[in-house]
């Protein structure tokens, strides 16, 4: 059974379903929530809450009409070899954080850029920052060896521009349609080669990404790019 909890004022919805209804996922994998007869699809990271699998969808009007929950899609995120991990995101990156955190046992600190009603609602421990430069201070102060960024390509690009000493893995946001690697709408240029965010992503070493080309390939409305 899929349950939908409206949080209209906050602009997002919770989609909750019994864990058993969803194919088990690995850390970093996402699902595509499809709506209506046209199977319009929105990628979303799953996480667990109270024995249920939860997806968060922002501002979807057709929410009652879920036709399919497909996945898990994308490559799992492997964090072995890192011991001090910092996750940086905005409000929209919280589901990605929950997914990454729950997918393994490592301790992961969280910095959120700006305020986050969602983090409050989920009771997540985090530190708020107002400027991305604060990431550099945090990395230096706490000797993080890995920074993971999510929520928005601009945040990831901004962190990459800081030239921090830690490795940086970014969650990439592109439109995604089939999730199978057929249509190329989600192409990302990594180390000069075309990769597909839907099947090769959504996690790439940030310094390898061609951020300018990623910006140029934004052919969808902004809202599609933010999930």
């Amino acid at each position: 059974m899929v349950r939908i909890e409206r949080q209209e004022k906050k602009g997002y919805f919770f989609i909750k379903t019994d864990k058993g209804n969803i194919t088990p996922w690995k850390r970093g994998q996402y699902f595509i929530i499809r709506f209506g007869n046209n199977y319009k699809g929105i990628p979303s990271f799953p996480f667990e809450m109270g024995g249920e699998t939860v997806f968060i969808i922002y501002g979807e009007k057709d929410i009652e009409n879920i036709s399919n929950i497909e996945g898990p899609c994308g490559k799992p995120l492997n964090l072995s070899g890192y011991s001090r991990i910092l996750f940086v995101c905005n409000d929209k990156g919280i589901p990605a954080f929950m997914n990454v955190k729950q997918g393994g046992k490592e301790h992961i600190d969280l910095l959120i850029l700006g305020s986050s009603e969602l983090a409050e609602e989920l009771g997540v421990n985090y530190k708020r920052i107002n400027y991305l430069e604060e990431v550099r201070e945090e990395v230096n102060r706490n000797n993080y060896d890995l920074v993971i960024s999510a929520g928005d390509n601009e945040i990831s690009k901004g962190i990459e521009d800081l030239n921090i000493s830690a490795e940086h893995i970014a969650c990439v946001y592109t439109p995604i349609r089939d999730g199978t690697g057929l249509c190329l709408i989600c192409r990302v240029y990594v180390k000069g080669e075309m990769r597909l965010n839907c099947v090769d992503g959504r996690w790439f070493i940030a310094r390898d990404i061609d951020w300018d080309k990623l910006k140029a390939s934004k052919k969808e409305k902004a809202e599609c790019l933010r999930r």
Partner: protein
Amino acid sequence: MPKKIRYFDRNKEPFLSPEERVKTFKEYALGFSVNMAVDEAKRCLFCKDAEKRCIKGCPIHVDIPGFIKKITEGDLVGAYKKIIETDIFPSICGRVCPQERQCEGSCILYYDTVRNRKNKGLPVSIGALEKFVGDFIRISGIEIEEIPDPPTGKRVAIIGAGPAGLGCAYDLAMKGHKVYVYEALPKIGGVMTYGIPSARLSKEIIDYEYERFKKLGVEFIFGCVVGRSKSLREIINEYDAVFIASGYGRGRLGLKGDDLENVYSAIEVLMRVNLFGERVDLGKKTVIIGGGFTAIDAAITALRLGVETHVVYRRTRETSSARQEEWDHIKEEGAFIHWLTQPVEILGEEGKVRGIKCIKMTLGEKDESGRPRPVPVPNSEHIIDCDSVIFAIGQDPNPVSYEDVPEIKRDKWGGIMVNERYETTLEGVFAGGDVISGGDTVVKALAQGREAAKFIHEYLMGTK
């Protein structure tokens, strides 16, 4: 009295006018009426040696005179049953097969395949007759019983619900095996659903065929990207045999400037419009690169989105792999076709497409494929202004389902290698369709799926 041979009075399938059809994604070929179909069927000479002619020309070897005879007798159920002995999708193949190169190209009225010489007439309209029979059964709601053999207790997994996967699923289910089809997309059909526009192939037909499979007890697992949602290795361990039919469907780009905004793979445009019902913003004028089925389908789609549509192709109409009549159709609908034109660079401004630089070609010596090789005409560079570019230059394999299983040997392009029994290099794993051929036709994929089913059945029953 000897039968009068009707060489020329071929019945022409009625079409919507170009002005009407360009406004709609509904099918433009309207199909034969009963009278037309019976009259066209009567043109058939029912050649005794048809297996050397039209039947041989058909990649799945439909008993063509057999089903046409039934039409002349008014037995459409019999005609349908005759076709589905070999081709389980009459309505689909009747629409999308390039018959002029297959059955109709080998019809004695048009070409004497035994003496290998051209005849003077027009072929029997085999495709339209096949479509008529399939449509009659579907629209009239007549139930054709398809009764599977008793259960064997064997379980088979099929990766991909395109024509190859479906062909294989059908025969294995009929043999009493339990078949599970893993499909990444939310619907069956593969390219027939997400690639071929509904103007050429109504999606109602695919929905109808889906019901047939459900009745046979075939289970579909939609939204499962094998290799990501579930690994192929897990599937291999869970089933008695596996058939990989994941196609060759990854879009392809490949020109300087292809990273600009408003550059699309044809698969993206087709999939977004056909499967997801989106309006893709192609601007006012688009240029499609390519000369095959995919280029035609991209043009059909762009025209219906109200976009000025140009197709650039480096060869000529005669050497293109698309159906000849389709070129006429898109031209009638307003497409501009630039033959012997090779694109060399996509030009951009502020990250967006503003035009495409091309060079004129001329035909030179024959290449490996036997076709004259196009060679550039010096100083013939020119620019076609446009707001978007669509690549329809063929597809690449999509290895996601099998890339993590190195025991399955791949060919140099990344497709799967099989032997004559459709066996891959890993025991119990078979493959067929575009993933082994590198891109062909619906009917060939279907034929391979069905043939592979025969060998899978033998493997399962230990009668190999």
